[in-house]
């Protein structure tokens, strides 16, 4: 049986363990590197030994070939398998006869060995031979900062939560590894520029860089930033119609304008304003973040002319979509802010396209016209959007004009409860994820709990269960919605479907539509599977 790993998520709090199947010394591992680029890497491990261990480490309980696993059916867990498999090869004298345990750092090291040196051996491993162990919360300090759980991960590296051990302030740490940066074009250059920019900025609505640390030995760089509980994009993703009430969008937009004003006053053009780059602190203060593609104008530049635009396509203005060689920089941010505001309040994009080329073509082709329903929703709002989405940069509103706009100055009526910040890893209070590490550190002896093991099979079952419940929830809410709005015969069918027994064609299409959402949810759920009920060996 072959394992296909569909994505690599470090958030899954587990260690990977490869055990030998029934007998052979040689194993084959079939691994899919990342979800985005469906590469399949095959590793053949010829050096896998079963050396008897010199001493049995009590932490490692023997597990032979996870017999009851049964084998992962379709999907399989999100795990950095390739590293684990490499581990079997790399760590020859394993602590245990047929088992190799790896922690995050080792996986990183292996990453480097297997990828950078160009290891041509591929391995294949049985899905039932992979066993995960719940990760122990070993405290990790970087300078005076205690590291917590992973908040997110990008091409550059991870973002972890952290806490300043002196003043107990919650923080976020962006961890950049030289190795990963080298793979990205202009990676190191971009990061140096980002740090340089962030150091100059100090404003309520711009994310604050607290500290920069370097670890030459590990080739890592740590950017310590103030902590944000979530981003606007996640909020939208969790909202029923992927939009927020007008008054809520208004409060965020005002803060966005304040932040942008500060950036522009420092001659900085962000170039990538979008909901995903707007974060929120605990007290709902908006913070503009991610200065990866931002540009600072020269002190003696005659105007705001720019030549490069690298932001997200859907938020690009026509002048960039049409590939103009030079364009006015500040107005780029205005356009993206307009798209952002429109997206926050309506859940839609002014321009769409099946693919990036179509999208850019549509953006570049013609002046956007505000739809009639938008005028019905709020005429002043439609006017502002229209002013910000002028195809001609010189006709587009400036920040000063936006400040004087009728809708900007108005206070939209509160029409209901605001959409909330989505729970982080299942904790709706957004508690610090550093706390368990601190507890393990300070009361380690008391908390020596049993090791928890689980297999692919368990993970798959749990995944399926979560996905099913998520789907049921969506169906339920849809049914409830329908029941509220229209009393039609279909409601009864939906109500029946609610119980999860019937799967009418109507439901199926709905589920299909929401399919991606479910998938996304399911993916997230992997990171918070409670393992209490899983089989322990």
């Amino acid at each position, binding site marked *: 049986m072959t394992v296909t790993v569909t994505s690599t998520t470090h958030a899954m709090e587990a260690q990977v363990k490869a055990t030998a199947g029934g007998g052979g010394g040689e194993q084959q591992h079939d691994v899919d590197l990342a979800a985005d680029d469906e590469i399949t890497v095959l590793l053949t491990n010829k050096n896998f030994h079963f050396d008897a261990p010199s001493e049995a480490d009590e932490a490692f309980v023997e597990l032979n070939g996870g017999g009851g696993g049964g084998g992962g059916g379709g999907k399989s867990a999100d795990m950095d398998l390739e590293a684990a498999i490499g581990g079997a090869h790399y760590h020859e004298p394993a602590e245990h006869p047929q088992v190799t345990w790896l922690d995050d750092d080792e996986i990183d090291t292996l990453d480097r060995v297997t990828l950078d040196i160009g290891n041509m051996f591929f391995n294949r491993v049985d899905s039932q031979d992979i066993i995960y162990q719940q990760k122990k919360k070993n405290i990790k300090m970087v300078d005076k900062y*205690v590291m917590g759980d992973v908040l997110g991960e990008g091409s550059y590296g991870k973002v972890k939560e952290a*806490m300043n*051990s*002196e*003043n*107990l*302030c*919650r923080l976020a740490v962006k961890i950049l590894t030289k190795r990963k940066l080298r793979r990205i074009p202009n990676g190191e250059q971009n990061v140096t520029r980002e740090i340089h920019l962030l150091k100059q900025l100090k404003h309520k609505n711009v994310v604050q860089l607290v500290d920069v640390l370097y670890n030459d030995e590990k080739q890592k760089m740590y950017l310590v930033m103030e*902590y944000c*509980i979530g981003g606007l994009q996640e909020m939208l993703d969790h909202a029923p119609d992927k939009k927020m009430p007008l008054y809520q969008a208004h409060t965020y937009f005002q803060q966005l304008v304040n932040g942008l004003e500060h950036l522009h006053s420092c001659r900085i053009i962000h170039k990538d304003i979008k909901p995903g780059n707007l974060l929120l*602190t*605990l*007290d709902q203060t908006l913070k503009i973040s991610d200065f990866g593609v931002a540009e600072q104008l020269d002190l003696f530049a005659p105007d705001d002319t720019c030549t490069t635009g690298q932001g997200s396509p859907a938020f690009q203005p026509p002048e960039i979509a049409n590939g103009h060689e030079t364009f006015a920089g500040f107005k780029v941010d205005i356009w993206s802010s307009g798209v952002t505001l429109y997206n926050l309040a309506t859940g839609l994009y002014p321009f769409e396209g099946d693919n990036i080329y179509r999208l850019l073509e549509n953006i570049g082709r013609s002046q956007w016209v505000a739809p009639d329903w938008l005028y019905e929703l709020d005429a002043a709002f439609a006017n502002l959007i229209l002013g910000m989405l002028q195809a001609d940069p010189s006709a587009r509103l400036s920040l000063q004009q936006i400040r004087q706009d009728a809708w900007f100055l108005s206070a939209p009526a509160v029409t209901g409860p605001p959409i909330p*910040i989505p729970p982080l890893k299942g904790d*709706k*209070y*957004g*508690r*610090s994820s550093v*706390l368990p590490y*601190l*507890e393990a*550190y*300070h*009361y380690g002896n008391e908390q020596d709990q049993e090791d928890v093991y689980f297999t692919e099979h368990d993970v798959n079952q749990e995944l399926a269960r979560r996905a099913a419940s998520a789907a049921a929830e969506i169906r339920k809410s849809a049914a409830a919605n329908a029941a509220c709005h229209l009393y039609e015969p279909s409601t009864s069918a939906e109500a029946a479907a609610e119980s999860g027994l019937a799967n009418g064609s109507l439901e199926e299409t709905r589920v299909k539509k929401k399919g991606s959402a479910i998938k996304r949810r399911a993916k997230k759920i992997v990171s918070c599977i409670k393992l209490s009920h899983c089989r322990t060996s």
Partner: protein
Amino acid sequence: MFSSSLSDYQFTKLFKNGKFSSVYKANHTINNRVIVIKKFTLEEENDEALKKLFAEILCCRQFNHPNINKILHSFISDMDVYVLYPYMCFGTCQILLDSIFINGLPETLIALIFKDVLSALMYIHSNDFVHGSVRAHHILLDSQRAVLSNFHESRSFIKHGKKKNVLHGVSQMKNLNWAAPEVLDQNIHGFTEKCDIYSVGITACELANGIQPYIETQPTLMYTEKIRGNVPSLLDRSTYTMLLDDQGKMPFENSTRRRSFEVYSQRVLSEDFHQFAEICLNRNAENRWSAKKLMTHAFFKQCRHSSISDHIKKCRTDLQHNSSLDDEVIIGLQDEQQTERRGNSDHVQWNF
């Protein structure tokens, strides 16, 4: 009332000299009043601290309560900001703890102080403010009353014309040991004015035991302890054993700590006091009593036949036996005698 010209003030004593601020005792030559002047330099590039100072001045000026330290006046001269406060002859409770009551204040005096502090808190809370840093260091005493000072950590529920239900934000590093668990936790829940009540509880332990709670604890351990609901306690005959280590021995090397340990093992604090501290230190903010309700607690019964000045008189006699005291307190006591004499003469005049 007060002059804005520096030449009208005669600086008589320097209390504290810091990088950003200095504290002086001064004489206002126009009406011959003794005051305290805090001087802050504007040259420092520390605009964060300056903002806090301005917020503190604004905040204090909104309050009018006998148990809240008033700002008499503030003005700018050259590159310095001068803020004028009334002179409190005993200084902070911290000074008393450091000099006279090394093993803690007498229980009745604590009750008297907290009665004043709680009435100040009640007033602040009813105005939708949170003090945010109640500790012995921020409670000033003179012969009549205790006043709450240092509002630089204070926050209002009302911002931009809207009233919020909860507050968010971190507290200053030096006040962390007094902070409530929900403040340290920094989660979506935020905190309310009840965080001040928790600080009152910690301050109670501080005043009664004579040592800052968590003073030798790592901040991270202090944090996890508070999250777990473990709190410091008032040390007396019933609780002192918790200081002992596994073998039942005293863990302290240092002789003054040993001596205070003996004091703890002999004294008895009232059940009411223990209960009062317990209520204040409840892990769950909703179960903590409000300042108003706490004022009715049986702990304050003992205030009835006593006043702060009685205790001060007692400590003055102690003082005569003990000459190794802080200058400041001696001066404080002398000043107190002077003011009292003046008060007495006023009294005589009334009779006349």
